[in-house]
């Protein structure tokens, strides 16, 4: 339900806390958001939450003959998805979702976190199909507006938005899925612009996004060109207001030491598909015991020992 306007699980909300935050000293309880109200505080979760969960094929799709007994998986291979597996399907994130508020067809945080649970599962054989489906859907992974509302309210720290960002990372970084929603283009455009200039050259972001990262493609591909033309009135309004000068739109200064940014890019983006990710949900923060236990300073001095223990990191891409 919503307590004082904020989506929450009633069973883990302390009355004292709710009262302390209540405007005017009265706790306000309302039904969950983004779902049709049946009566009083009862909403139709079947019509929204469970329907969306079904949408992402929430079961394993392995390939080949099933093994005689169980599938054998290294425990390390499952660590990456433990966070999404912690979901209890309470729907609080769906209730809080700000994208769904304006686009009821958005697949939403709970279902997309569920999708990552299978995308990240080494037993599943349809990773690329799943990613392609969610990237091409106009209400899929690129319809998430990155507002952190689901992260804020989740009672199990699933951080659904982070799982959606992982889906995007796999779709673009590992499979290069050039979706029709410009998700691939937007990420590529942004990342490339920073490598080239160090700060954001805004007037290139839109055309490059429409052209799958390329300025030239944005002007020759019919679909990109159409989008570019549609955004012209906004560009003209910007120029007319005086906030954007033609010079600023065309010329963007590089940082004085831009070669350092390039060097950092090249050190990290080595092209081997490996990515280092520190997930605090798994390693914990210092003082919680997790991080200290992962201290690799006592390791063998190899390259891997300069980063936190493998248990806390995702080395994406290579395992695919």
């Amino acid at each position: 339900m919503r307590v004082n306007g904020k989506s929450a699980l009633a069973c883990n909300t302390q009355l004292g806390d709710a009262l302390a935050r209540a405007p005017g000293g009265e706790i306000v309880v309302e039904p969950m958001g983004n779902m049709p109200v049946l009566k009083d505080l009862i909403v139709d979760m079947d019509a929204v939450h469970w329907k969306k969960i079904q949408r992402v094929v929430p079961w394993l799709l392995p390939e080949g003959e099933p093994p005689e007994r169980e599938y054998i998986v290294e425990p390390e291979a499952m660590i990456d998805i433990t966070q999404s597996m912690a979901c209890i399907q309470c729907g609080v994130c769906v209730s809080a979702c700000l994208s769904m508020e304006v686009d009821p067809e958005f697949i939403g945080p709970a279902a997309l976190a569920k999708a990552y649970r299978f995308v990240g599962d080494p037993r599943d054989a349809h990773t690329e199909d799943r990613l392609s489906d969610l990237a091409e859907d106009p209400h899929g992974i690129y319809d998430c507006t990155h507002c952190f509302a689901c992260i804020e309210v989740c009672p199990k720290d699933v951080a659904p938005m982070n799982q959606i960002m992982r889906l995007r990372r796999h779709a673009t970084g590992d499979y290069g899925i050039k979706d029709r929603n410009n998700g691939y283009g937007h990420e590529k455009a942004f990342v490339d612009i920073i490598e080239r200039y160090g700060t954001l050259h805004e007037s290139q972001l839109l055309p490059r996004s429409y052209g799958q990262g390329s300025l030239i493609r944005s002007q020759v591909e019919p679909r990109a060109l159409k989008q570019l033309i549609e955004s012209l009135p906004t560009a003209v309004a910007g120029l007319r207001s005086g906030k954007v000068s033609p010079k600023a739109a065309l010329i963007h200064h590089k940082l004085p030491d831009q070669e350092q940014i390039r060097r950092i890019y090249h050190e990290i983006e080595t092209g081997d598909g490996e990515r280092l990710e520190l997930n605090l949900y798994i390693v914990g923060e210092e003082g919680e015991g997790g991080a200290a236990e992962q201290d690799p300073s006592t390791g063998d001095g190899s390259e891997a020992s300069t980063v936190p223990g493998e248990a806390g990191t995702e080395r994406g891409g290579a395992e695919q």
Partner: protein
Amino acid sequence: MKVAYWPGCVSRGFTPELHGSMALVGPRLDLEMVELNRANCCGAGVIAEHNQELVDTLNARTFALAQQTGASMMNICSTCQGAQSECQQRLDADDAYREHINTHLEPEGLRYEKGGDWSNKNLLWLLVEEIGLDKLRERVVRPLDGLRVAPFYGCYIVRPTGRLGYDRFPHRDKYLEHVIETVGGTAVEYAGSHKCCGFPVITMAKATSLRQAGRHLADAIDADADCLVTPCPLCHLNLDLQQPDAAKYVERDLNIPVLHLPQMLGLAFGLDPKELGMDKHVVKTRDVQRKVAELAAA
């Protein structure tokens, strides 16, 4: 107070009026601003989505440059605040990880050090927590009496509370209202103040993006606001630059001006609206300027 000042990309790009107004307002708040001209983009959530090690290194670099000035860092962008806080949380959480990221900075002679009193705060947080509302009140020469201002925070500065220091400063989600009231205005309550402007998906899900912007603007208008004020230039792009388009998506007239936080402060400090770049908005700020001029005459 000396601060390592990170203006961000957009304040020097598509919202130059933000950078300009901050330059005028800073000295009136006794801020000695050492601008970080060598620092880089925070990644705005996009580089984090692409590669976490890359974004953590880029922001560690900015932090290291700020630490070289011997002062804490100030930003004027909610998105910078959120994106940088996310990286700082990871860098501070794990010594080995931080050391690894610092190896990428070594060739440049830079290093990010955790701890001490060093912090990175948005102007909004700095106003309330370091400068203080009393001092702010002292500097007001033209109280914005009767000006109805709708606060718009930007997601990155309000969520997730666990990462953004709300345990130590639980009222950070009320600061804009406090600042508006301190400079004499009336803070307008409406549904959208802490919601999303939609900017992050403007190129990918335009309808979702502009329905969000349009709805919040409409809610502010329905609550009789004269204008909005925001500490986030990216929100400003969707709420102001895209407002004519947003009106189409919510099928109604909008036409409500959106001020940057330093512009509102500047008006209360008696600065000329033109100098504050208020003519450089897509949605004209004439009515706000007229109201403020009437205050000056009264």
